């Protein structure tokens, strides 16, 4: 087949050209002003003279690019202080700015954005920000790409034709004038929830002038249910903050608190820290992790297999509606009064869970907490509050704060009211600011049609011309600015405010809401900076009072957080459970038997707002590994019952392409004709999960579903009566086949144990359990000798060196009957025919003389969220290749997160499903036991082998070893024989089979990191440990030689020392769970050495004797011995 999606974007887009093409007045004005002499000619009909000047015109157009305000540097005014102050601004030296990115609920995570030559190119978490602590989520990282999205709207339009901002403002002001008499009764603002104090201030100002105008908020994936529960329990709106750092036992009820929701990054960091098991005294002292006994425990009860469920110690798959029953039963078991009885009986396993679970929760009073997912009805949230209260979680693990949102809203009610008002003709002027209600409103509201038929003046303010922006629906379209283009402010999950500062002037003149409001209100300025600054000046005058405002303001900008703005903790009364019996509070009952459908936000595209972002589309979704599509996700058992297959069967799988059956889904009379079905082990039986956010019809080339990619419109099934969970789902017979781009179809480890894991008990019994290679060989356990570090190092780290002198008491025990051997056989260490490294520096092995970069991934801490993938894409200019190319097994990611399923049995280290003996029909039966499925994640990047097999086979020496142990790739040298890739046991090398890097789209050139080559066709590429960051740090260190020497920062050879933590790889920086350590093995104080010296550190495929520099800490789980088998 000809390579369809291998082709590049259709047309190059030039942001200059749109005006010209649209022939707007602005453009002709520009041309007239620029070339006044030719102005007359310009307007003439075709004349000889004009014809002759056509040649000149092309030159003129080229010249006009220089006049484009969008290409002027962002710092036309002094707008931003530096996070890291350089001596002077140097070309090529990047600058870093703190800002914040608002996501679900308008809640922000703090970012530090790297800017080179005026272009923001990379976002990372802001360590100062409480919602981030340095980590980030994929959407925040990928927001950089959205800035340069060539599909962004570039033009203000009226009824589909180009217009101007001034015209727009005049027209709207006229409308507002008409509203003055009605006190703004006909004015509606529909926004996404906002936490911006400045925006709230402006809306408040507006409300003063138009008291009857309404501000409505709608977000399809909202937290209405928990808000309702809070209201019912305490009688006032509050936000809950869970301090996972303190939680010892957590029960997640259909909650993916580790990877979704506004505080997921923070939750993952806090929670996973207590799952990083460390043995060494030095590691514990440095806070790398916790001792074995201090590990926390997670129970997960859920329908879809989520990341939180995947890392849980016990997981119980239940149908979505049964979670409520489970919560009721648990509450009853814990002795909470006023809980309605569970009418249908719970499944056996769930019944068996209750007692040991209740015991465990009771045993950890004050450090146990129940968290509930947004998709669960308010009753579950309310019950959880009661349980938490009972468990003494209030004020310890769980605290309540004043709502962070400027105006807490009931989203669906707001939208419903608006729809009714529109229908009733009560609306004269409607602003749809952000959001995309025509696409994502509950289907029964028929919002698109209502909007279309409304006679009101409708204004659409958005970054893309999306479903809501269709001409006729909204007369006015205003292109909105990206958050990196304008000033703003936003609050984090705990209320901490941040200033959003622009890093670049609006690329196509986008406007911000703040600018719109301040213009409409005639505040005297329409500059968002002034407005934001005024808001915070007020705050300064009221709260801070001391010192100089400018200094305070600049410090706030530099830090990325405004001190003292965290929301106050609020005291709550006892939980009132009365509402449980209140029909208006209850969610309409869902038919218990039969198939149920659950809607969840997409792990990458969220509610669909990121659908036009290629990075997010192509980052494999953490559990399913799907890219470019969503699918109806079912369990193997349900699939077998429905007669649905994924082409390779669920007993095997392939890299890139899964052939899935397509079915129709019918819910309450609404049918989605064709949905691909994806079979996922571990999913609850008789339930379907459908992710929202795919199936867009407008909004950019990347977003729009074309029939072979970017998915199925789940919103078409989502009605007010079944917003999250719908019962009585009918599934049609499979009709057609559909290719899903699933980057990892093969899910069993095949007994090769790439991911090594143990329970706390197993680990206690055998500290070196992870050393046993999957393949038997003479080097059984001796591979441990490849662990870096001298015996002295080990002693200092508080660990026993496995090969210390005097081998009589070497580090491991012998199984009964195994012969005791006197010390390890030196001949097989380090498993080489060659003698020891003969080159010496100062009498020591030369390999210990230079820096030795290494990386450790703690599998116990990895949540599989795949943020590292997006971070790597952003840092290393990794091209987006499109669905078709992914289905050809040609995804380009340098780091991938492998996901395996296993089925542990009674024997330690063994796995029923992975065994070669369990194949075919037997395996397909086994995989249906959803409650026994265990999920494992393993990020795989280049292992930087010391004896790299790729290097020896390259015929041109394009991949070579650096002195500090990096396996370097010289792109210019590569001729593309791909031998290195074949010989790589980890398959981490990626080949540019055709020209993937986009050299054609102008705006997309701007997103590239200038420190990393953009690879051409025919070249192999792979992870470099972010070598550009290493080299930068080296240069900086050399430059600071004297300073460092004075500070005693000198290594053993008298060179300036790169301090541990000064170099952070992109994946490491992004990792919300802090699962990645990187550093110099020859630095005795490095975190990476401490991690490598741990007993459960192992090298992936180390038995091949490639001596990987990257290694893994085996995952330790903490199951409750009292729990029934199955969920264990």
């Amino acid at each position, binding site marked *: 087949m000809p390579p369809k999606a291998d082709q590049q974007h259709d047309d190059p887009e030039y942001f200059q050209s749109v005006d010209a093409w649209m022939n707007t007045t602005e453009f002709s004005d520009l041309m007239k002003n620029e070339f006044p002499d030719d102005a007359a000619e310009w307007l003439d009909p075709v004349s000889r003279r004009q014809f002759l000047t056509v040649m000149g015109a092309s030159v003129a157009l080229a010249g006009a690019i220089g006049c484009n305000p969008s290409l002027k540097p962002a710092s036309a005014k002094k707008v931003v202080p530096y996070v890291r102050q350089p001596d002077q601004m140097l070309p090529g030296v990047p600058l870093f700015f703190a800002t914040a990115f608002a996501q679900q609920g308008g809640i922000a995570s703090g970012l530090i954005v790297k800017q080179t030559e005026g272009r923001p190119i990379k976002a990372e978490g802001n360590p100062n920000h409480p919602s981030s602590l340095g980590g980030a989520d994929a959407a925040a990282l990928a927001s950089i790409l959205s800035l340069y999205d060539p599909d962004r709207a570039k033009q203000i339009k009226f009824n589909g034709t180009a217009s101007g901002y001034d015209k727009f403002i005049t027209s709207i002001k006229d409308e507002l004038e008409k509203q003055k008499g009605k006190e703004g009764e006909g004015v509606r603002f529909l926004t996404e929830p906002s936490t911006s104090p400045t925006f709230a201030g402006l809306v408040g100002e507006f409300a003063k002038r138009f008291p009857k105008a309404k501000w409505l908020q709608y977000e399809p994936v909202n937290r209405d249910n928990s808000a309702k529960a809070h209201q019912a329990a305490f009688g006032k709106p509050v936000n809950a903050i869970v301090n996972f750092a303190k939680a010892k036992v957590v029960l997640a009820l259909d909650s993916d608190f580790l990877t979704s929701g506004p505080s997921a990054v923070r939750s993952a960091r806090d929670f996973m820290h207590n799952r990083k098991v460390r043995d060494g005294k030095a590691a514990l002292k440095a806070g790398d992790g916790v001792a074995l006994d201090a590990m926390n425990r997670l129970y997960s009860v859920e329908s879809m297999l989520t990341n939180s469920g995947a890392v849980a110690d016990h997981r119980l798959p239940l149908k979505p509606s049964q979670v409520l029953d489970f919560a009721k039963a648990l509450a009853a078991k814990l002795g909470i009064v006023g809980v309605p009885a569970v009418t249908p009986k719970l499944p056996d396993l769930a019944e068996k869970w209750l007692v040991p679970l209740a015991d465990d929760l009771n045993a950890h009073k004050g450090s146990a907490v129940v968290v509930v997912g947004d998709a669960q009805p308010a009753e579950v949230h309310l019950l959880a509050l009661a349980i938490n209260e009972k468990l003494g979680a209030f004020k310890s693990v769980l605290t309540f704060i004043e709502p962070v949102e400027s105006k807490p809203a009931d989203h669906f009610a707001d939208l419903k009211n608006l729809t009714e008002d529109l229908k009733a003709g009560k609306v004269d002027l409607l602003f749809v600011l952000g959001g995309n209600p025509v696409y994502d409103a509950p289907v029964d509201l028929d919002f698109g049609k209502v909007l279309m038929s409304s006679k009101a003046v409708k204004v659409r303010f958005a970054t893309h011309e999306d479903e809501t922006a269709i001409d006729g629906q909204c007369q006015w379209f205003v292109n909105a600015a990206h958050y990196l283009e304008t000033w703003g402010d936003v609050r984090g999950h705990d209320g901490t405010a941040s200033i959003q500062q622009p890093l670049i002037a609006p690329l196509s003149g986008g406007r911000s809401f703040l600018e719109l409001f301040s213009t409409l209100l005639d505040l005297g300025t329409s500059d968002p900076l002034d407005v934001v600054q005024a808001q915070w000046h007020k705050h300064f005058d009221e709260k801070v009072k001391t010192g100089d405002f400018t200094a305070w303001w600049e410090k706030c900008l530099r830090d990325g957080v405004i001190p003292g703005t965290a929301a106050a903790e609020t005291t709550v009364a006892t939980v009132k459970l009365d509402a449980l019996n209140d029909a208006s509070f209850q969610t309409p009952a869902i038919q218990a038997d039969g198939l149920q459908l659950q809607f969840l936000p997409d792990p990458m595209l969220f509610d669909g707002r990121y659908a036009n972002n290629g990075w997010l589309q192509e980052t494999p979704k953490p559990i399913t590994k799907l890219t470019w599509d969503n699918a109806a996700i079912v369990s193997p058992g349900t699939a077998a019952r429905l007669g649905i297959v994924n082409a390779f069967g669920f007993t095997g799988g392939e890299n890139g392409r899964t052939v899935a059956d397509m079915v129709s889904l019918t819910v309450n009379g609404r049918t989605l004709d064709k949905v691909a079905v994806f079979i996922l082990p571990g999913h609850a039986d008789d339930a379907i999960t459908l992710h929202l956010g795919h199936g867009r019809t407008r909004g950019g080339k990347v977003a729009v579903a074309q029939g072979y990619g970017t998915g199925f419109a789940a919103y078409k099934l989502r009605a007010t009566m079944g917003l999250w969970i719908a019962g009585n789902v009918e599934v049609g017979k499979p009709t057609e086949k559909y290719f899903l781009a699933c980057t990892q179809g093969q899910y*069993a480890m095949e007994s090769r144990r790439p991911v090594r894991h143990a329970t706390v008990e197993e680990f206690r019994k055998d500290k070196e359990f992870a050393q046993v290679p999957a393949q038997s060989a003479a080097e059984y356990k001796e591979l441990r000798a490849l662990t870096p570090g001298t015996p002295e190092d080990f002693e200092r780290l508080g660990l026993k060196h496995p090969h210390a002198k005097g081998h009589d008491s070497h580090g491991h025990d012998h199984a009964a009957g195994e012969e005791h051997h006197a010390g390890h056989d030196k001949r097989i260490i380090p498993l080489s025919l060659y003698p020891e490294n003969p080159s010496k520096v100062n009498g020591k092995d030369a390999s210990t003389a230079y820096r030795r970069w290494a990386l450790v991934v703690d599998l116990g801490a990895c949540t599989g969220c795949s943020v590292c993938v997006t971070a790597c894409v952003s840092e290393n200019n990794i091209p987006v290749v499109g669905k078709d190319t992914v289905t050809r097994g040609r*995804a380009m990611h340098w780091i991938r997160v*492998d996901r395996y399923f296993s089925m542990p049995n009674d024997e330690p280290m063994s796995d029923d499903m992975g065994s070669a003996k369990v194949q075919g029909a037997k395996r397909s039966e086994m995989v249906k036991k959803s409650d026994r499925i265990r999920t494992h994640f393993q990020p795989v990047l280049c292992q930087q082998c010391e004896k790299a097999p790729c290097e*020896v086979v390259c015929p041109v020496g394009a991949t070579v070893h650096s002195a500090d142990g990096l396996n370097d790739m010289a792109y210019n040298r590569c001729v*593309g024989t791909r*031998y290195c890739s074949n010989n790589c046991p980890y398959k981490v090398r990626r080949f540019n089979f055709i020209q993937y890097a986009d050299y054609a789209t102008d705006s997309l050139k701007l997103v590239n990191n200038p420190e990393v080559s953009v690879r051409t066709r025919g070249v192999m590429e792979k992870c470099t440990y972010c070598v550009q960051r290493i080299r930068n740090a080296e240069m900086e260190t050399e430059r600071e030689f004297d300073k460092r020497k004075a500070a005693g920062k000198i290594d053993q050879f008298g060179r300036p020392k790169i301090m541990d933590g000064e170099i952070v790889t992109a994946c490491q920086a992004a990792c919300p769970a802090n699962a990645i350590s990187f550093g110099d093995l020859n630095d005795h104080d490095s975190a990476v050495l401490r991690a490598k010296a741990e007993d459960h550190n192992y090298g992936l495929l180390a038995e091949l004797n490639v001596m990987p520099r990257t290694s893994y800490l085996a995952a330790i789980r903490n199951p409750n011995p009292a729990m029934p088998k199955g969920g264990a």
Partner: protein
Amino acid sequence: MATMTPSTNLGTKLYEADTKFPPHPEGLVEGNHNLATLGDKIADVSIQITPTPKAWWLFFLVGLTLAQGLVAGVGYLFYLGTGVWGINQPVAWGLAIVNFVWWIGIGHAGTLISAILLLMHQKWRTSLNRFAEAMTIFAVMCAGLFPILHMGRPWLAYWLYPVPVNFAAWPQFRSPLCWDVFAVTTYFTVSAVFWYVGLIPDFAVLRDIARNKLQRGIYGMLAMGWRGSAIHWRRYEKLYLLLAGLGTPLVFSVHTIVSFDFAVSIVPLWHATIFPPFFVAGAIFAGFAMVIWLAVPLRQFYGMSDFITNKHMDFCAKVMLGTGLLVSYGYFCEVWMAWYSHSQIEWDTTMQRIWTGPYWWAYWVLILTNTIIPQFLWIDRIRKNMMALFLIAFSVHIGMWFERYVIIITLSRDNLPSSWGRYAPTEWDYLLFLGTIGMFITLFSLFVRFVPMLSITEMREFLPKAQGGRDGHAVMENAK
């Protein structure tokens, strides 16, 4: 040396057996030829006296058509990149390398027949060596295309040679691909020189009997002033012997080194010491299958069965049988070693290869065509039946292609299950393969038409003394 006056009237009579001569004692020449009839029968094809059989046109045009496919395939490949093929991660090598190894294997028999059999005094080689060498050269040409085409940036192919350039691109000599370049280049060069040196006296014959100026001019130039003087013969025979000696190790080296592409890697089932002998045996196997394939039409359409006798075919079949058994032993060894190693991944991959994996059928096609079907060659009657022999050789062609396919496809099941993936060639993969087949057919058709397809000189020496020959004492006997 007397030649008969060429007759414009196609004298089938001319070549008829002269019954006054006794037949060849070993049955290696049939039809009681004498020096003159033998020379004319071969040379008349080249100087266009023998009418071109219709089948020649069929072969030539089919070949030429397919060769156009090669042009199109290469054009599109160069335009878009190797992405037009089905290669991916983890199967980064696909049909290009399969075809490369397949062609190199075919290119094996020629030099084996010319050089090794010469050194080993196997008289029967004499009827086969010329066209077998041509086959070698054309097959290596086809093979040589693929390593260049399969490169991501083929315009940099010269970087694999140690060319002293000021940007200091220099090969990395530890890489088997680098050895490949030297092995194949050397093999091709020596084979071509060997072939050409053998052709010089024959070109002189053609020059002498040429029917027009053009022929005389071209063959004259190619004959390089050969006059047949004693000193010419002496030098010629020395050189021929030296080249045979040079060619002999190359027969072994080239496929050994090609096998290193696999054996030196650490891919499960590639990393095996059995590969070099296994590959050499496989190459001879494949090469003889191709010799049979070429000999059958030559006998059929050019009536060369006088020289390529049933006896020859029988010998070829026996070599095929023998090497086929060696190859089968290799298959056994691969499985045995995987089991015996106790290496889990080796054994799993073996099981995937032969039974549980998606390409199990390819393995059994290979076993059927390479191991089972050639066993029919034990039967005398089948070895003498040209149609049967032709079909068995066809089976070997398929089998040897699948052998390389199975090896390449092993990449789909390597160490980490997460990166397992399948591979399917695209139409562009197949087009290139068919294109090289076309190129081979085209070149071979032209060779048959314009160059003596059998060695006139050696065939004459081969005749019994009574018929003016030297009783099969080949050139080397005199190279003192």
